């Protein structure tokens, strides 16, 4: 065959080889088809470890217990027991190293999340004591009269 046929063919082949070489550098080694097959599982395996390495912000009640066992035990019996400590005091991960990072939310808005009276007859909300925020002492914080750890009005104690 004549060289005018071969020459462009060489060029085309060298372009393909170049693309393959570039691809081997650009595509990560762990990229490929994994557990869930080609349709759902094509990915870079190392990314799973990256998501596992995300910093923890919220511990669990076990974490609070390590130092505050007495508090966790006592408060667990109060009507507010099911509320995670860190919903108000937190997130608390690593606060022993840097106590100033621990926030304590004592705001009226926090209490109103559950205790603003709503007409929701088909949810747990209707079983929770509710107030009307606009008329129930709007000028002061809830914690002036109610102790969030023993949620009965102080006057009644």
């Amino acid at each position: 065959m004549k060289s005018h046929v071969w020459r462009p063919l060489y060029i085309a082949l060298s372009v393909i080889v170049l693309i393959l070489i570039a691809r081997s550098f650009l595509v990560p080694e762990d990229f490929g088809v994994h557990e869930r097959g080609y349709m759902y599982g094509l990915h870079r395996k190392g990314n799973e470890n990256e998501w596992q390495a995300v910093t923890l912000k919220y511990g669990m009640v076990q974490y609070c217990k390590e130092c505050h066992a007495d508090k966790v035990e006592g408060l667990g019996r109060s009507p507010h027991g099911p509320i995670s400590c860190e919903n108000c005091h937190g997130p608390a991960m690593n606060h022993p190293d840097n106590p100033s990072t621990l926030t304590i939310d004592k705001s009226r808005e926090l209490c109103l999340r559950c205790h603003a009276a709503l007409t929701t007859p088909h949810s747990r909300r209707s079983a929770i004591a509710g107030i009307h925020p606009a008329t129930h002492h709007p000028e002061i914080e809830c914690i002036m009269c109610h102790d969030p750890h023993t949620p009965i009005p102080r006057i009644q104690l």
Partner: protein
Amino acid sequence: MNRRDFLKNSITVIAGLSVPLAALELINPRKLLADKVEGSKIRWAVLVDTQACAGCGFCVKACKTESEIPYEANITRTWVERYVITRQGRTYVDSPKGGRDGFTSDRIDLGGEGFQNIEPNDIEKAFFVPKLCNHCESPACAQVCPVGATYQTGDGVVLVDRKRCIGCGYCIMACPYGVRSFHPVHKTAEKCTLCYHRITKGMKTACVDACPFGARRIGNLRNPDDPVTKTIMSGRVGILKEQYGTKPQVYYLALSREVK
């Protein structure tokens, strides 16, 4: 047409009709349980009790903090919807800021169209529905990703590789549940990771831990003794938008037909 051709054609038509019927088979959690023999020993699933949810929004707050989503940005990986159905048959749904600050007023937030007051006597049903990524068994989002950035792990969690994602938004369009958003800082697709950094360490997700009412629970479908799995296997649970065939793995207790 002779007899032979007639029989041939009939068989072809019947065979053709039977394929879509098999393909339309709806979700069967038992199948996922049986799959444990081959493959991963874990298949995560979430059980949401819509009667237990009180709309406090602690789950949304915890999620935004735990997953490093800018707190004021109008995106969230999980959210809580309020449904109000009136006696006249009208359905109102709202989720101000995704329910991040809880629901503190009876008026419905209509977004740009202001607020809607509903007479308490007119309310037939009202309840809260927490929403999150369904970590589908056939995730449409992972299927459409052109660069292999969105994928499913062996234990059923759908994740996004931020280094590979090119931000084209196909997955955001493909998800029938609207659980995906665009991260304003990383400029990549953003979604619930089922707190992959927590569940792989034996912890629960941040939203599950933050819920004071046990409205959200997480379990392993491949462990027949898991209480969450037992409830799901009872068959008395609902899923969202099953007509899309994505086989969602977030199961709902007391799901109402108005919930989409």
